């Protein structure tokens, strides 16, 4: 299923997961998915399970690491945290994203005037 999604969407979710972990600290899959939903004002009501493909990819690239722990309500869960190289990647990708969004925004504004 992860292969069917367009590459950009895959990368975007990875970026959001990375950002979430950087912002709120170590969190488990459910917490990350919930947070993304909340921030997007529930506009991104994705199947929460899709987050696990992101988590695996990010772990394999060494940008996050996972560890089993206990949650607030004493449940066992696997907590993920961002690594140092993960933070570097996040910064680079954020810059990239803003740059691209700016360019596209300019292009779209151009079309409206004409």
């Amino acid at each position, binding site marked *: 299923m992860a292969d069917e999604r367009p590459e950009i969407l895959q990368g975007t979710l990875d970026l959001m997961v990375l950002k979430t972990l950087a912002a709120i600290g170590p969190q488990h899959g*459910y917490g990350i998915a919930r947070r993304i939903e909340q921030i997007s004002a529930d506009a991104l009501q994705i199947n929460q*399970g899709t987050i*696990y493909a992101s988590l695996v990819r990010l772990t*394999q690239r060494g940008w996050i690491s996972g560890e089993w722990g206990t949650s607030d309500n004493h449940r066992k*869960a*696997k907590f993920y945290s961002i690594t140092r190289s993960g933070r570097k*990647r996040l910064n680079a990708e954020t810059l990239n994203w803003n740059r691209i969004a700016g360019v596209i925004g300019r292009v779209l504004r151009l079309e409206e005037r004409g």
Partner: protein
Amino acid sequence: MLAWLRACATRIAAAFHPRSRDQHEFDRELSSHLDFLTRENLEKGMSPEAAARAARIRLGGVAQLKETNRELHGLPFLETLLQDARYAVRTLLKKPGFAAISILTLALGIGANTAIFSVVYAVVLKPLPYPDSQRLFTIFQQRTQDSSVQGGFSYLDLQDVIAQDTDFSGMTGVSGHELTLTGRGDPFIVRVADVTA
């Protein structure tokens, strides 16, 4: 780039380990996630069955998730290749007659190809055992009227060509023939060549 390499290395390493441990761990992650979702639904006031059902829907198809997770670890291409190979062997063992004919045909094909290639290589492709053999040329004469090739090159013609300012660093006339070597033992024929200076 480095990160991608790291991911590849992880997957290759994982391909050689039994994946059951990773899969069990993922199963635990999924149930933990379902747990959280169910609690969230219970807090919203749903009945336990409705909460559990809604939780499963919200999470997405568990089988699909497990499959995706499995594919991300290890090298699915390699695994399917091995699976297919094992299946092929099993099937062939069940039909030995067919297997024998296939193998024989393949052997014949490969053998014939190898033989032909060996000949072509020795005769045409192999470089001559001289240094800079790609700079060696044979010069022959061709009639302009009908483009037929002359069998020989006369010594006088050779002198004419050498006298011209050609791009060749040197030219030599060669005439090959056979002689009989006598003396000790049985006489036999040797191939010799006369060459110009």
